[in-house]
């Protein structure tokens, strides 16, 4: 198992390498030159040239790339052109927000999606099934950002139930700690702040979860339907097991396998969704930040973001494979070398 894991890890290296090349090319060869905006309204052509020289942007692209990778391998992702702050600092200070949001969203999406998927499959063609499937279909058809804005109008504008943006009321902000507000507030025993953070996360998390929820519901339903037709379900019923244990013990645990793959893949697409959701809800994570940085050609930050996100993405896929293998006794690591 460990060997398999290491092998898979090694296979990620070329993928990450090519990702870095791709992004580097897009950013440094095709993207607009940031010099004039980095230096603000007091720039001159001369100053811009000096800045480019200082940033090494006049070097041949290959030299630039090698320099960059050398530094990355030494843990240095460079310095943001605009804030003069190390990219690592910039990203690490925003990552907790994105991780917190994505994790809540994937939990919501999985729990709700799996629950309704099962109900739909078991009560196939019932009103609940039709309603769930219609909702799920609308869910995959709605632009995330539109859904977000509608929720803001409704819950924040008219009902005043939740704040329209941000992670937590400024005054409730935890001091010290990890930057994961749920964790920090709980550790501090500050339940008021915890619930405040929960309120803030509610709309963005639901918005972000929406699409994945719909996908997971549909996947769970079809997987459950597949499994419910299997012979071993008949065997289980023939044993005299109750409908509940047939569905949850025998059917669900088998149906879960493909669902887990989908959930894992959805986690990746959540990162995509986070770009839009964070923008709509002013959620201070790397999603909204990366849009900002792309728009102002902050090369080092974009390169860092893409590398880190790609890394998280491939690692997630690896973890899903491992989880799959752990849950399905039929899968053996040795067989799965492709």
């Amino acid at each position: 198992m460990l060997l398999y894991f290491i092998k898979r890890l090694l296979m990620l290296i070329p993928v990450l390498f090519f990702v870095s090349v791709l992004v580097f090319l897009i950013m440094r060869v095709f993207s607009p030159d940031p010099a004039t905006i980095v230096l603000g309204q007091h720039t001159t052509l001369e100053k811009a040239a000096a800045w480019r020289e200082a940033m090494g942007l006049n070097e041949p692209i290959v030299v630039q790339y090698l320099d960059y990778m050398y530094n990355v391998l030494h843990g240095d992702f460079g310095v943001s052109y605009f804030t003069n702050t190390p990219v690592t600092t910039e990203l690490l200070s925003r990552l907790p927000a994105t991780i917190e949001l994505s994790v809540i969203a994937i939990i919501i999406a999985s729990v709700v999606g799996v629950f309704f998927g099962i109900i739909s499959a078991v009560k196939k063609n019932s009103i609940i099934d039709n309603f769930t499937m219609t909702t799920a279909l609308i869910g995959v058809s709605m632009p995330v950002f539109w859904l977000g804005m509608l929720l803001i109008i409704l819950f924040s504008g008219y009902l005043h139930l939740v704040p329209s943006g941000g992670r937590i009321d400024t005054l409730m902000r935890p001091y010290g700690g990890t930057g994961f507000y749920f964790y920090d507030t709980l550790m501090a025993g500050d339940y008021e702040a915890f619930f405040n953070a929960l309120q803030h996360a509610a709309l963005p998390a639901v918005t972000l979860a929406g699409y994945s929820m719909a996908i997971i519901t549909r996947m769970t339903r079809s997987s459950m339907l597949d499994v419910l037709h299997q012979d071993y379900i008949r065997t289980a019923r023939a044993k005299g097991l109750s409908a509940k244990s047939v569905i949850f013990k025998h059917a669900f645990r088998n149906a879960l396998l493909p669902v887990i793959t989908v959930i894992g893949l959805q986690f990746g697409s959540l990162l995509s969704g986070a770009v839009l959701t964070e923008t709509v809800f002013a959620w201070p994570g790397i999603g909204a930040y990366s849009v900002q940085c792309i728009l102002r050609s902050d090369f080092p930050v974009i390169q860092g973001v893409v590398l880190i996100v790609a890394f998280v993405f491939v690692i997630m896929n690896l973890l899903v494979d491992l989880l799959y293998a752990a849950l399905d006794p039929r899968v053996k690591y040795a067989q799965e070398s492709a």
Partner: protein
Amino acid sequence: MTDSAITLRKSSKWGDMWASICANKAALTSLIFILALVLTAVVIAISQALGFQILPYDPNVGDMDKAFIAPCAEHWFGTDQLGRDIFSRVLDGTKISLSVGVAAVSIALISGTLLGAIGGFFGGRLDNLIMRAMDVILSVPSILLAITFMAAMGRGLDKAVLAIGLVSIPEYARIARSCVMAVKANDYIQAARVTGDSNLRIILKHIVPNITSPIVVRATLGISSAVLDTAALGFLGLGVQPPFAEWGDMLARSRSFIFSAPYTLIFPGLAITITVLAFNLFGDGLRDALDPRSRRR
């Protein structure tokens, strides 16, 4: 014998498909809606090319005195910040959404299918190389990649098409590859190889017909995601050039007025959702029609 059996089955397959779609009310309604959308877009485009306006108002020119009029008899969907009629703009927007959707899917479909088919057919290093390249594209969240592209190349319809098309190549490549590999493993292909059929002949005669249906299904669903992606790019301010109406761009502009003028937000969003929904429903229907296994459910 095998050949005639295949063609026989094929023709009845498309017939079955049509029957199955007709039996599926949602898919049929969607198809009609999609055709209506296409018709709207074409009629608007032709009339604009000929220089007359069939929309109630010029979608791109507004009367500044009439900014932010709530929906009423004259302006069914209200007017925007520049006093332009939202109803006309929403209708006008079908042009861009559909053309970007179709064009982006075509790009992805053609290059993806080719790459996947080549990889699957020839296998070996070439296959490995192609699939690793697909992995690279897949390992960056598609919207992030598309934004990066757009930011690099600048705004514009053509660039949006390219960006969206590019990020969805891997889906088609994967489908095509697995289909080709499955078909290739079939006995009759082995037989064709033994009897000395050329690669091209095998591809045209055996492989192309077999990968058509999954690819067609994927493409229909692909248009829906391309419409969503176009809107997302427009929303982030990286869509088409103004003053053309684009739904995502309209939503982006409405952001500052979501409380004071929610109608600027509602209608373009509805347009996106319903269009995407139609393509999804039709795609689902198509898949059920082409894949008897899923029809059973």
